[in-house]
């Protein structure tokens, strides 16, 4: 495994920046540049690179879709949120329609925000492409077909011209796919969700979204610590603050930056990536949660440092 590329990082519902929010960013950038003269685009790039991310960028708005670049020829994705649309367009632009590709897609669960991108996944419409969709839910295929039934979508599942195969994964059982060992784990979420552990060439990536961790049952906690053990990267559902996650949003099936830091520290993981951002959170709020998670890691560190980042659409992590 070489890198992770994020195509969709938002939880529950896609969001877009408003004109007013873009204007705020421009104002902040222009205020910072007041009095400066840029002799070239390179100098502008240098200036932009020095801005805080909430000013120069955005945490993005597509729902869950994460690519794992394995170094092999096949594509590997986690979830079919709206982020799979730009992924598919990029893949088609790269290979063209006449060069069939293989896609391995691992589904955390079947809630709408994790499946809504499939009808807009261009490679599914191209004959010759091979798409393998993996998951531990019995209703995986039915859920993906149902969302394209009338009156929800104008064309049904039979419109796809790619070869599409559904593969059921038994939780806890390791499978060899695309040069990786893949294991799933049941997570606490309405209708169940499954976390993924991907291992290859001594590297480990965890994809664990839509999972509420109460950490009150020692055996359950021990199970997740073992699942996250020594991971190079843990992509983690940090949708709410801890206070919200255990009060007004208790049992909504999501976790916090605080619990992410705690679990990764217990597991000896190296990199926690906050993911599945709350749709009502703006860029400053997500940046705040990131900085606070980093501070929490710093004041509670009891071993090697844990790197903490917050995923945004387009972000890449070298593994």
């Amino acid at each position, binding site marked *: 495994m070489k890198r992770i590329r994020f195509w969709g990082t938002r939880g529950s519902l896609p969001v877009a920046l408003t004109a007013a929010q873009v204007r705020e960013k421009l104002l902040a950038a222009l205020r910072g540049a007041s009095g400066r003269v840029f002799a070239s685009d390179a100098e502008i790039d240098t200036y932009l690179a020095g801005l805080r991310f909430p000013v120069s960028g955005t945490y993005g708005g597509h729902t869950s879709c994460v690519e794992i670049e394995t170094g092999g020829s096949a594509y590997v994705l986690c979830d079919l949120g709206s982020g799979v649309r730009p992924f598919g367009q990029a893949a088609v632009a790269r290979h063209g329609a006449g060069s069939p590709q293989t896609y391995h897609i691992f589904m955390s669960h079947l809630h709408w925000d994790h499946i809504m991108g499939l009808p807009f996944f261009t490679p599914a419409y191209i004959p010759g492409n091979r798409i393998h969709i993996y998951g531990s839910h019995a209703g995986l295929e039915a859920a993906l077909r149902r969302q394209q039934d009338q009156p929800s979508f104008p064309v049904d599942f039979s419109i796809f011209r790619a070869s599409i195969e559904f593969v059921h994964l038994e939780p806890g059982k390791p499978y060899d796919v695309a040069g990786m060992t893949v294991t799933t784990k049941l997570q606490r979420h309405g209708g169940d969700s499954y976390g993924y552990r991907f291992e290859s060439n001594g590297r480990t990536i965890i994809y664990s979204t839509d999972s509420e961790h109460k950490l*009150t049952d020692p055996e359950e*906690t021990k199970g997740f610590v073992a699942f996250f053990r020594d991971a190079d990267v843990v992509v983690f559902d940090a949708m709410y603050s*801890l206070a919200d996650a*255990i*009060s007004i949003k208790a049992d909504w099936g999501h976790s916090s930056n605080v619990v992410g830091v705690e679990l990764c520290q217990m597991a000896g993981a190296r990199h926690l990536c906050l993911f599945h951002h709350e749709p009502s959170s703006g860029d400053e709020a997500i940046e705040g949660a990131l900085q606070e998670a980093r501070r929490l890691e710093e004041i509670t560190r009891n071993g090697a440092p844990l790197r903490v980042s917050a995923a945004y659409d387009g972000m890449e992590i070298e593994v």
Partner: protein
Amino acid sequence: MLFSSRRFADVVVASPVGRIDHGSAGPFEGALLPLLAQLNIDEVALLLDFSGVEYISSVGLRVLMAAAKQARAQESSIAIAGLQPIVAEIFGISRFDRILDVYPSVADALGQLSAPALEAFNAVKDPSAT
């Protein structure tokens, strides 16, 4: 984790000492339960003096949340005072400072919760004041 409590008029001040983490949250909860059961029977409030608490994990915070819910259900109250700087940061990061009543010191808290309790507390601190 050590735990002691003392009554000042109609407020019980409980003083946990040490770390409230995944290993000690259970005993912390066990120590709180009998005090919560007395709320609104003999006392109006439970005040947690956190000046001796060095660290609290999410599980410990979850115990506080459950205690606050129970206190509210009993139409009583729970408050926390004297956070050490690290614990105050954890309260801020977790947003617990927004959902629990947190005071700089025990005296500040008692001043808000109960005048008789503050008077009793000050009398213990300075016996000549009685």
